[in-house]
Structures are given as C-alpha cells and as structure tokens.
C-alpha cells in the first residue's frame, strides 16, 4: 500500500469506511433506500433527495484493491460472459452475481433501491440490467445524446458559458432524462424534489471545486509537487462521490489547506523530484505502489491524473438560475471531455503544460477495451507537444495479467532511454 503523507488522506479513508458501515446499517436495519450508479451520473440529484449512492467504479476499485477481481471475473466468465467484455464496469456486478457475501469486501453490497447509468456505450445498459435483475431492483437509464459541435478550448467556456458550449438540444434532452430520474427518486424516497436545494448544492459543489482548483494551482506552481498523484485521487474522489455535502466541501478545504502548508514549508512529496509524470486514464487500483516506484531511482513523481484536474474545469458552473440545466451541462459531455477527440487531447495537453509534465503514461485498458478510445489522439497530441509517451497496456481492476516487475522495468527503460535523453537534449538547446 502506497505511503500516505497527508493527514487528510487518512481522514478520507476513515470517512469512507465509516460511511459504508453506516450505509449497511441504514439499509439493513432501517431499510433506508440507496442506489448504485455509474461514476458519470448526476450524483447531485441523489444527494438532494438524500439517497446514498455507491458508485460502480468506486466499488470496483475496492474489490480490486482487496485483490478479489480475479475471483469475481472468473465467476463472471464461468457464467458465459466472455473475457473480452469490459471488466471495470462489470466487476462490481460480478460480485453480486457471484452471490458469495463471505468473500465480498465489507460483506458485500446490499440490495439497492435503484441502479442507474448513463448510456455512454453499448455495454452499460446490458451490465446494469443484468445486475438489477440479480438484485431484483429497479434500473433506470439516462440516454446520452452525441455531440456534433465541439468548439476548441472547452475549459475556457465551461464555467460561465456552458449554455453556448453544449448544444441546446443535448442539454434539453438531458434535462428530460434527469426529470425521469427525479421521479424515480421521489418514488423511492416518498420525498418531493426541491429545485432550491439543488441550487444550494450546486453552489457548494462550486465551492468544493474552487478549493480543488487552488490545490491544483499550487501543485502546478510549487517547485516540487507537495502531494503525490495517488493521494490526490484518494482525497478528491472521496469528496467527489459526495460532492456538495458539508463533509465534502470541508474536506476539499482541508486538502487545500494541508497542501498550502506543505508548500509554505517547502515540503515536497518526493524531495528528490526531477521528473514530473502524468497518468492518463483510470488508476491501476490493484497496484497503487506502482505510482511511487520510480521516485528513488529517477526522482520521477506522478503529479497529474484526471481526477483532481477535472473537478474545477469539468464541474464548476456559474449562473445557476436553472440548476437542472446547469447540471445537465456538467454531465452531458464528460465522455468527450475526458476521453475523446478533440476535447480530451486538447485538454490533456493543456494540463500537461500547466503541470510542467516531462513524460506521460497512457493507460490502454485491454480488459476494458472500449475505454481506450481516444488514446491514440491523446498520445499523438502529447508527443507533438514535446512530451514523450509510454502506452501502458493493463487493466485498471484486473490484476490477472499484470506483471508488476515487468511493468516497472518497462517504465524504467522508458524513463532511462527516452525521457532523460529527451530532457537533456531539450535543456542543451534552451
């Protein structure tokens, strides 16, 4: 398990554990409804309706970190689902289908009142419908309109000019989908949705992301990063899953403060930092030590992943007179912004420059192949911007084909033979 340098990282972990224990208690003892949802869903609506949520990806990461992915994926394959199907989004479902609570982390996921996903691919309706059937729970989908108008430098428009950035018909359609979801949540809870509560929550989400933005700016400007990537992820995601809650806003502030203190005191995550690395894609959740493995020999520190950076650029929305529409704009293009051309490649290069990145590792998730779309464009754009790229073929949750030593060796060779000579030559020429 990778070292934790920040107090708030421990606090985030503790909070997650306590929250889940409470959830199980609430669900089993008080029959309180909860939902399982895909990571790119509008969590805000669930929070406003006070329906606790477990994200599919969060649960997959937990299973993976507990090294149970092989067990569950084997179970899935034995049911006739072949090995080429996406593992990341199906691992949590596999843990339900395996029907073996003794093996499951923290006793497994209890029956949810609702499962829900946005249809950003052709698999998710299948995974979630199969999963919902196994639970005997209701399942609701949010269809996902495609984008045809993708103007350059989206992050310069997303906060104030989101109405113009995203096509009107896409926003309107997404609002209709959210209304369906709200109806389902009203049914589940017996409560009435209140738009003012959503507006308040959206404002708090803005505050939360503003703290994250300050943290990000310090990571960019400090001589050496004050916080490693895996700790950024742990703190940011614990808060993003509960975005807008008092705890999340407060946690984002604490995270910012702790980073600020470290910067003021000149504390670096890796005092010997010489190379700044970028990780593109979801994390390798079954081997988080991988992200610190190149510090000692190369002074190579992972300083960037999408998890922190996307918060400010992707989530902040000003002008909340129609909060549902604003929420639609936050949700509707996550896939294009994070993964697909032209938006993902353009944004990632912009981020690389901001963070003074020396080299990038791009995950090609072979056990979750469709999630690799857009990668070649990202890799080319980074290389064209003078940033050497190493594609890493691995799965984020499945450790079965992961050879930690071979992978470390591969990265070391990349740093030694591509990145260092590249940097030396760039320094000579400047």
């Amino acid at each position, binding site marked *: 398990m990778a070292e934790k340098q920040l107090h708030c990282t421990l606090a985030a972990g503790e909070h997650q554990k306590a929250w889940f224990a409470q959830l199980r208690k609430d669900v089993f003892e008080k029959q309180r409804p909860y939902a399982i949802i895909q990571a790119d869903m509008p969590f805000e609506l669930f929070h406003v309706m006070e329906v606790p949520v477990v994200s599919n990806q969060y649960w997959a990461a937990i299973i993976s970190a507990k090294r149970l992915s092989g067990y569950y994926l084997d179970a899935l394959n034995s049911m006739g689902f*072949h090995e080429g199907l996406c593992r990341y989004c199906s691992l949590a479902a596999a843990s339900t289908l395996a029907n073996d609570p003794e093996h499951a982390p923290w006793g497994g996921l209890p029956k949810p009142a609702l499962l829900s996903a946005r249809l950003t691919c052709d698999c998710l309706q299948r995974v979630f419908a199969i999963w919902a059937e196994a639970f005997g729970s209701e399942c609701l989908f949010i269809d996902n309109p495609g984008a045809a108008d993708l103007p350059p430098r989206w992050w310069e428009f997303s906060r104030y000019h989101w109405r113009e950035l995203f096509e009107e018909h896409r926003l309107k359609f997404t609002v209709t989908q959210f209304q369906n979801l709200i109806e389902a949540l009203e049914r589940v809870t017996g409560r009435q949705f209140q738009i003012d509560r959503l507006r308040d929550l959206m404002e708090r989400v803005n505050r939360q992301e503003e703290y994250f933005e300050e943290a990000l700016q310090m990571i960019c400007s400090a001589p050496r990063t004050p916080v490693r990537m895996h700790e950024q992820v742990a703190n940011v995601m614990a808060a993003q899953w509960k975005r807008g809650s008092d705890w999340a806003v407060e946690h984002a502030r604490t995270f910012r403060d702790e980073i600020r203190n470290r910067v003021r005191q000149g504390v670096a995550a890796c005092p010997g930092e010489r190379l700044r690395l970028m990780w593109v894609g979801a994390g390798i959740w079954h081997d988080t030590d991988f992200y610190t493995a190149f510090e000692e020999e190369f002074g190579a520190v992972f300083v960037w992943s999408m998890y922190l950076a996307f918060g400010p650029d992707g989530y902040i929305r000003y002008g909340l007179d129609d909060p549902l529409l604003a929420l639609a704009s936050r949700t509707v293009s996550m896939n294009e912004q994070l993964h697909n*051309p032209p938006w993902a490649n353009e944004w990632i290069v912009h981020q690389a420059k901001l963070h003074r990145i020396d080299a990038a590792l791009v995950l090609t998730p072979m056990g979750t*192949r469709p999630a690799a779309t857009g990668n*070649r464009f990202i890799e080319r754009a980074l290389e064209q911007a003078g940033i050497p790229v190493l594609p890493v073929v691995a799965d984020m949750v499945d450790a079965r084909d992961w050879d930690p030593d071979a992978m470390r060796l591969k990265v070391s060779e990349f740093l030694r033979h591509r990145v260092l000579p590249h940097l030396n030559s760039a320094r000579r020429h400047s």
Partner: protein
Amino acid sequence: MRTSDMKNSDFTAKPRNTIAPIDRLIWHYENPDAEAMAAAAGNVPVVGVTSNTAPWELIRAAGAFPCVINSGNPNYPDIGTFMEEGVFEERIRAIFGAAISGDLQHLSLLLIPRTSEQEYKLYLYLREVARQDPTRRIPPLYLYDMLHTRSPESYSYGLERTLCLKERLEELTGKRIDDAALLYAVRESNSARKAIRKLLSLRNPVPRVTGTEALTLIGASFFISRDEYAHLAGQAVEMIEGRAPVAGKRVMIAGSPLNHRGLHHALEKHGAVVVAEDDWWGSRSAGMDIADGSDDLLKAIFEKYYLDAPSPRVFPFEIADAWFQEESTHGIDGVVFYLPPEDCVVGWDYPRRRRFLDERRIPHLLMREDAGSISEECHEQIERFVNNICIR
C-alpha cells in the same frame, strides 16, 4: 466488404445482361462502390451511410444517391495512427481507413447514424483527423444522432434530429424535400423491402436458396437504387422459386453483424443451410414497410428507423430480443452465436439468449473466431456441431 471479397470496382464492368438478375445482384454486392461512383461521375450527389439506421428515403427524396459504405481496407497502415487496436470492429476500421485515405471523396456527405457507439466514435475520430489535417480528402461528415432507447423523450429527440437531417440534405442538394418526393422515395424503398421479404420467404421453412447466396442477393440492396434492386430481386425470386429445396440443417446466425459471407460459407460447406441471421445485413434488412398512406411521411420514416431497425443500442431486452426469440423458435434446427474476437457488446447478451435456447432444447454453438479467417480447428467444430444437430 473484405478486400479479398471485392472484384474490380470499375462500374463500366457491370454485367448488362438483363436476363441474369442474380449475377447482377452478386456483382453489385461484390462491387459496393460501383453505383455510387457512377452516380458521382454523373454529378449526382452521393450520400454514404455507415449502417442501417439512416433514413434512406430522406436522402433519396433530396435527390441524392444513398449507399451504404462497405469498402475499405481494415489493415490500411495509417489506421493504427489514430485507432486503438482491438477496440473497433473491422468494418468500422475499414470505413475509417477508406475515409482518411481519400477513397470516399466521391461522397458529397458521409452520414454516420448513431446505430452503435462505435459509429459515434468513428464520427468524432474522422472529424478530428479532418481538423488536424485538412489535406486529407475526407468527405463532409454528419452525425445523425437518433437514440435507440424506447422512451417518449428519445422518440421526440429522434424526430427532431430527423427534421434537422432533412434540412441538411436540402442544403446539400439544393432541393426541397416535399411530400411528393417523400412519397416516391417511400414507395421505391417499400418495393425493395417487398422483394427482400419475398426472398426471405424462400429461405425458411423450405430453403430454396443457400444463406451465402441469400446474403449476397439481399446485401446488394444497400448499394444500388432501390427501384433497380426491386426489379432485379423480383426477377431473382422468380428464378429461385423454381429451384429444388436446398438440403441441410437449418441454422440461424446470431451475434455481431456480418458484412461478408465467410461464416455462411463455412457453415454451408459443412452441411448446414443458413436460413436466417439476426442481422441488418440479412434477414433483418427489410423489416416492415413504411406506411405510404401516412399523413406525416417524415414521422412515418423516422418511426421505421426508430422502431423497426436493429441496433445494439435498442433497449430494453424484451424489445432487443424479440426478433431472436421469435425466429429461433420457427423452423430453426440450430443457432450459431458469432462473437468475433473484438466483441465487447453482444457477449453480454449471449448467456441470456443461450438460456432461452437451452430451455427449448435448441442446439447452439459459440464461435469466437473472426469469420473472415476461420481456422481448421474451428471448421472441425462447425462440422461436429452441424453433424450433431437433429432436424426438428
């Protein structure tokens, strides 16, 4: 279409012999670009579409020549510069390759319907290659974003998108799409559908045509005018009706769409006769007619593609599985599930559909190899499967 499947695409080589309709349809299947090239050479705007959920009638009513793109080389070297390995279907790779190499420059528009997520990505990729490198002769692109979930919101959204497409096509050709043009186009395409349904009736329950030939004869409809197709297919039907029944175990193919004849050929070589495929290239290409008496033809056209066109995005399962369940229980001796190595989608349906067959004691075989290059081992598996099927 695989390169090995293609012959000379020179449209002047088209057989003119009017008494050989079957040969002519085969020729068109094997030369999918020929008519489109000829139309473009005659200054008719050509609109290429990448799959089955684009409204043919609208394109036709705008005065353009509609055709499905089924050419290109999935191994064109530059594809790997942009597309990830093992992520896209071969057919989508081939279309991408054809577009970035300039092979589709005869198109006035490449219309990409949202039949599958891969096609949406194809649109985004092509758009970006064109932006980054304007010297590549990529045709203008259009995303027809019809959603396939069955909900009132998706319906309204799709109808609105169809209206926008109509406007784009009018702008492209400079011709207003009026009701008369729509009616003409609807009748023309209905006549082709009728011919296809007739052909399908000669496959099951008494097959008079092999699956390999049927797929070819049906597939030609995607590449030529539907008037001509209806005429040729009608003649072909008359010829086939007089044939003796084809002997063999009646097999249905389910799974990923097959835009070539490799699997049909392999199955039939081993004593099966493919009588149906759950696939828009074959048995599901025609579906039902568009109501030509509708007082809102545009809506009727939209509904045809929204409600009666297969797509991996159709949901829920009851609707997505309806055709499979109906067909597999009528005159089918066995089912082959085709899930090629790159499949990431249909595999989720396989255990459910397999269960459906098991409950009815219908034998089935899972095939995970690329049907374009079937190994000896797989041939043996197919042979064993076909031999073990009991005729029902």
